[in-house]
């Protein structure tokens, strides 16, 4: 069943300094089915974060449409929640207060239900015991767990993740990826995960969409053939590396082209 559909979306930016418009996304289409984990990879500047902001309803766009469950989106909605790259936690609220924040703003749940869900999702992301701590007392990885719990607690139809582990150190990132898969196995959400790391995309996702850069176009979509649950050492297996290499080559072509253009300038 189709959950999220991005249909021929184009987006242009106004470049203040050059006094002209530049395309950021051209004719991007994408469909994610119910319960699917979809990743988008692409070099930086390929407009993948713009695409996520459009789907989140935070960014207007010129052409095409984005729909969830067949309904066209109009701005932000309770059917989506975003896990941001920067944890974006309210520094003056405790962990529990932050996890509750999304639900509070959306006004979907009764107070008692909010309290229950807060407790449940704090537990789910492995932060039980930290309810009354402030974000500044937590490590970057723990803050991203709170970020994730806040999004899951809001019970979205589609979970949008914008490079949530990019700011973490390599070891924490690996660990958080494995944790995310465990949590996802329990929460069973439709996920759109944006990253610039190919092996992160493959390890996490059912399908990996590859974007080209400047302007952003959908280049290809790869089916990830590995079953679940996935252990971290999957990343070191030959068939994983083969897929990683195939995607890397697709992006590399692009990067070479770009480099050629830059040198020609």
């Amino acid at each position: 069943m189709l959950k999220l559909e991005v249909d021929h979306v184009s987006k242009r930016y106004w470049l203040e300094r050059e006094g002209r418009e530049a395309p950021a996304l051209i004719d991007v289409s994408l469909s994610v089915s119910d319960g699917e984990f979809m990743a988008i990879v692409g070099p930086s500047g390929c407009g993948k974060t713009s695409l996520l902001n459009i789907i989140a309803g935070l960014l207007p766009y010129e052409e095409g449409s984005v729909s969830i469950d067949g309904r066209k989106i109009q701005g932000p909605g309770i059917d989506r929640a975003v896990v941001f790259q920067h944890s974006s936690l309210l520094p003056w609220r405790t962990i529990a207060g932050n996890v509750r924040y999304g639900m509070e703003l959306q006004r979907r749940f009764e107070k008692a239900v909010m309290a229950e869900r807060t407790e449940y999702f704090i537990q789910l992301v492995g932060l039980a015991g930290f309810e009354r701590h402030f974000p500044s007392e937590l490590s970057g990885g723990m803050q991203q767990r709170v970020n994730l719990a806040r999004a899951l607690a809001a019970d979205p139809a589609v979970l949008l993740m914008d490079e949530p582990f990019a700011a973490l150190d390599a070891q924490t990132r690996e660990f958080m990826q494995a944790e995310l898969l465990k949590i996802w196995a329990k929460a069973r959400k439709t996920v759109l995960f944006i990253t610039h790391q190919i092996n992160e995309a493959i390890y996490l996702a059912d399908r990996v969409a590859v974007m080209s850069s400047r302007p952003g176009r959908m280049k290809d979509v790869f089916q990830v053939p590995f079953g679940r649950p996935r252990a971290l050492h999957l990343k070191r297996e030959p068939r994983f590396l083969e897929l990683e290499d195939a995607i890397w080559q697709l992006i590399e072509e692009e990067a070479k082209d770009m480099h050629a253009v830059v040198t020609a300038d």
Partner: protein
Amino acid sequence: MKPKQSFYERHEELILGGAAVAVTIAVWQALWSAGKISPLFLSGPSAIAKQFVYGLRRGTLLSDMAYSGTNFAIGFALAVVSGVVLGVILGWYRRARLVFDPFMNALYATPRIAMVPMIIIWFGVGMGSKIFIIFITAFFAILINTVAGVRNIDRDLLRAARAYCASDWQIFTTLALPGSVPFILTGVRQGVALGLIGMVVGEMFGGSQGIGFMVAYGGQTFATDTLFVGVLIVAFSGILLTWLAERLERRFSRWKPER
């Protein structure tokens, strides 16, 4: 685990600071007792203490303190309430801010003391003008800090709130207001210091009561000991109130990373 510290290490600040003050007072007293200091230019610690006790016995000191203190409390409370309320409004509504900006900038740039004669014309030499001077000196620090605090919404937090369908009102109550609290308290702390200046200056310009008057009178009659009693009372009030404001500031920024 904190490493063990000796008694001296734990209280180093207090010991060194206290010793410096004690030595200064001792040297001062020694010079005073030896008659090396003219009572016309500078009093001595023992004379100041004597004058202080004398003032207390006579009851004039307490009534002066009560007079100044009452004025300060009223003027400062008015400054906090109106500074915070107006600051929140101006911080949140851009158009209102644009309308008020020229007046705010002009008044902020003018030393408030320059307005004292005008204020005395409006309110007379009684409590009214004293309270208003304290109000006007403390008000701007609180106002300007509050405006800055309300405007200072973190862009990432704003984006997150928007993504969760926050209304403008929710952004105001959950982001703008709590985020402005540390700014407001900074304004309050600055307002305390400025308000005390207003209190002393206001009483120097007219009237016949209060600590500021006592200082001015002591100066005019070359009663340096009386003058010093007044200055020390104002100094201690300043230290005490600033300390309270700092504690309040820290109490409300528990969530900030420890420095």
